[in-house]
């Protein structure tokens, strides 16, 4: 006997993500799901962002990592609440993990929540956690062929930060190739070219975040 089914395999995660999304909306909270490969600069970007915006926006950070709470401590040092999630080998955060830690956050008194996903250019893109936007980082040291190799994340992200542009003179990365390929995959993607080392380009990113939180 055959039984026809038609059910989305990720339905359980998607239902929980919708619940999170609804809650964020009720609380007027803008949420960013930040993704990249390991070492592209997610935590450094967050350290900078917290420093720049914490006096103007009430913010918190959720740190996802396979193990350790190093990143959460780096953020907490900057003076905002940071919660660590350890996935214990898992390659991505899912909506359930986010829901489980939301009780630790004072959502009524927050404007901005940024989630640093597990370092990985493939898996996190498949799992909705209820965020408003997915933002991804590609650092120039990873090479300009990455959109070709990891199209899904580029398609799913609303924002692309091209980081470590201070290192451009030392690589054979052509930033224009990244821009072209990313826009081809996703014509609406918003691109920021930044250096979290020198601070170049970060003002535009901060400005964009402030505009988004005002809309909430």
């Amino acid at each position, binding site marked *: 006997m*055959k*039984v026809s089914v*038609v*059910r989305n*395999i*990720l339905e359980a995660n998607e239902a929980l993500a919708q619940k999170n999304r609804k809650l964020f909306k009720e609380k007027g909270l803008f949420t960013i799901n930040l993704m990249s490969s390991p070492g592209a600069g997610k935590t450094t970007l967050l350290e900078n962002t917290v420093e720049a915006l914490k006096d103007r926006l009430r913010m918190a950070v959720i740190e996802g990592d396979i193990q350790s709470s190093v990143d959460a401590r780096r953020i907490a040092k900057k003076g905002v609440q940071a919660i660590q999630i350890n996935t214990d080998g898992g390659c991505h955060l899912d909506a359930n993990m986010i829901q489980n830690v939301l009780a630790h956050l004072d959502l009524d008194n927050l404007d901005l929540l940024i989630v640093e996903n597990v370092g990985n250019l493939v*898996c996190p893109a498949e799992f909705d956690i209820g965020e408003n936007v997915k933002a991804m980082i590609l650092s120039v040291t990873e090479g300009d062929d990455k959109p070709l190799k990891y*199209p899904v994340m580029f398609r799913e992200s609303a924002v692309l930060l091209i980081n470590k542009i201070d290192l451009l003179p030392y690589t054979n990365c052509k930033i224009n190739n990244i821009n072209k390929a990313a826009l*081809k995959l996703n*014509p609406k993607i918003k691109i920021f070219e930044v250096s979290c080392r020198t601070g170049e380009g970060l003002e535009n990113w901060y400005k964009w975040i402030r505009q988004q939180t005002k809309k909430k």
Partner: protein
Amino acid sequence: MHELSIAQGILDIIRDEAEKNSIERISAVRLKLGKLTAVEPSSLSFCFELITKGTLAEGARLEIETVPITGRCAQCGREFTLEDPFCNCPGCQGLKIDILTGREFYICEIETDD
């Protein structure tokens, strides 16, 4: 990778469907998997086999039908299959292609020998 948690999701769904349809053993599961998803079929099959041991779906065949990436040219309207997500329109060389299929990821059928 994340194929293990996906295999778990599949098992949860087919268990639920088996219960609804009073099925005691599942012999095959059919899925559609778009080429624009970050899921590796062979890894998924491996994880499925692993996770169904000792369940009603032990030994079940996992039949994965991959769905090609198709798109429509925003310039000339032509619909075509994209060999990779970077193809231009074969008709007018247009660059802007709206994706039509390739993101599918769902179970379409289960089968039982009962």
